[in-house]
């Protein structure tokens, strides 16, 4: 049996948001790892993909475009690990679908929504669907 995934990767170029997300993640008994752009995100994933429970990914960031960024993440993580698009864009759901993502949060959001996503990810990790 593999080790439980306990790390949530927060990818956003806004330091305040990363701090907020990390606080919520920590409040759920999880570990938050921050990345300011997709390059840093992929670097983290390459080092330790086994521990990643979920990725909170911003849409507009310097550097890599969202499409290649998601493709890079998907290469390094199993499909069961949720990649959550967290964006201030007007059409968050549409952009998530374009990237092939099923989870998204539209900024600003209620912290309970983020907690619910994290709980669902942990539950899925503990009891994976066959």
């Amino acid at each position, binding site marked *: 049996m593999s080790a439980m995934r306990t790390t949530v990767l927060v990818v956003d170029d806004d330091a305040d948001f990363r701090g907020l997300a990390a606080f919520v993640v920590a409040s759920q008994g999880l570990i938050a790892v921050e990345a300011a752009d997709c390059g840093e995100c992929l670097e983290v994933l390459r080092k330790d993909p086994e521990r990643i429970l979920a990725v909170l990914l911003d849409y507009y960031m310097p550097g890599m475009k969202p499409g290649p960024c998601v493709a890079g993440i998907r290469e390094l993580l199993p499909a069961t690990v949720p990649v959550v698009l967290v964006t*201030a864009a007007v059409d968050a759901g549409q952009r998530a679908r374009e990237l092939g993502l099923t989870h998204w949060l539209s900024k600003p959001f209620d912290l309970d929504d983020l907690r619910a996503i994290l709980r669902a990810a942990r539950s899925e990790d503990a009891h994976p669907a066959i």
Partner: protein
Amino acid sequence: MWPRVPVSVGRRLTTLVVVDALTLLALLAVAVLALSRGSADLGYMRRYVLPPVEALPKAIDDAARLEVALRSDPEGSARTVRVQDLIGEIDRFASQYRSDWVVLDNPAEDAARFRRILQDAHRTGLMAQERTALDALFANLTHLKQPGASRDELVTNAAAARRALRSLLDVNAQYVVVTQEAINGRAHTARDWLILIGVANLIGATLLGLAVHRAIAPRIRRVVKQVDRFREVGVYDQLTDSGRDEIATLAHAVDVGIRTIAARDREREQFLAVAAHELKTPVTAIAGYAQAALENPSDMAMRDRAVSIIHRNAGRLGRLIEDLLLAASARSGKLRFDPKPIDLASLTRRSVQEVEALVPNHPFELHTPTTAYLLADEDLLIHAEWSLLSYAAALSAPHAPIGVTVASLPGRVRLEVTLADGRLTESEISRALSPMDFVQYEENGGLRQTGLFLCREVAQVHGGSLRIGHSPEGKAAVTLELPA
């Protein structure tokens, strides 16, 4: 088909007017011709037909009285004074007729015209009849004036002269009839021509008008339909008109206008989307940290951190909103300008201090004189400096120093900001000055701003300038220069 012919609308309408004008001229010409011919015919009648018709009854009467006088002469010599007077009257009439009124030998142009009328009417026999009657009259007069003629011979000649005169009257009466018929005929011909030309013009002008209408109306309707569609549902479909006339020019102008409005709408929508995105970022931090602080009232460290972040993001939010409003005012040319004496050196020192606090990874190297006074709007200048400094921070690598130099020059002051590294491409410079765009930049501690558009507008409203270029060392440099 008419629209395929590259003829201008103006030329089509001109053709229509010219055709109508030519028709009117033709109608006038026919009417004038008919009137002039009728007038000529009447002139001849008035000069050569009516006078003998008026004079002949008296001559006939003279001849009749001569005959009576001769018959009642008891001596039979017929040489009374009365008889001589009557013969003289008739002789004078005959001479005048021969010299003035006879048609056949009359060299006048009117007479020649009348002879043609007689010819056209197949009544040339009247001229022979006139000649015969006139010859007979002169022969009778010769006999009447001959001395020694018997009374019977004189009576016979007087009667013959009367008949000759009667015959001349008949001939001239026929001349009147022929002239009237000729005038009537010309009037009928003129009427027929007028009707023909009028009808032809009616048909021609109608067809031409329909053709012009067909060439113009559908295309104008198409333009109006497109404009209505754009106005009602905001959908822009390209307006195409393959013609090369004024309608095509109009359609092209409308197309350009609608396209410009549509582009501006798209630009505005994009701006709103980006503005919403940028505004939601600090709002997310404010709302999120407020919620976290409320949920953890006993966590003092969390509360202090939340308050600090909320305060900072509220400042960001306020400045962003102010920037957006000022950019919108600048775009519509309504930037308010309230100048007063300001020390740019002092103002720059303060701005650098404030921006530096927000971007601790970006050190500023400040060079300012003690004072650098100018006449300026303080609020606008603060926004311009913030735009300039945050733009420099956005495009500079962390920890690389950003040069800020204030210089007081004759008649002007200059603020030059040198980016830490790199050169700006034309595209980056253009984007930095776009009124509806945000600058995308590398990691910078969360500062976002609306580029240098507002900074340039502030420079312009002060009568100064903003230049984006490169320093001698190859570093990107933005220079704000304002009149002192």
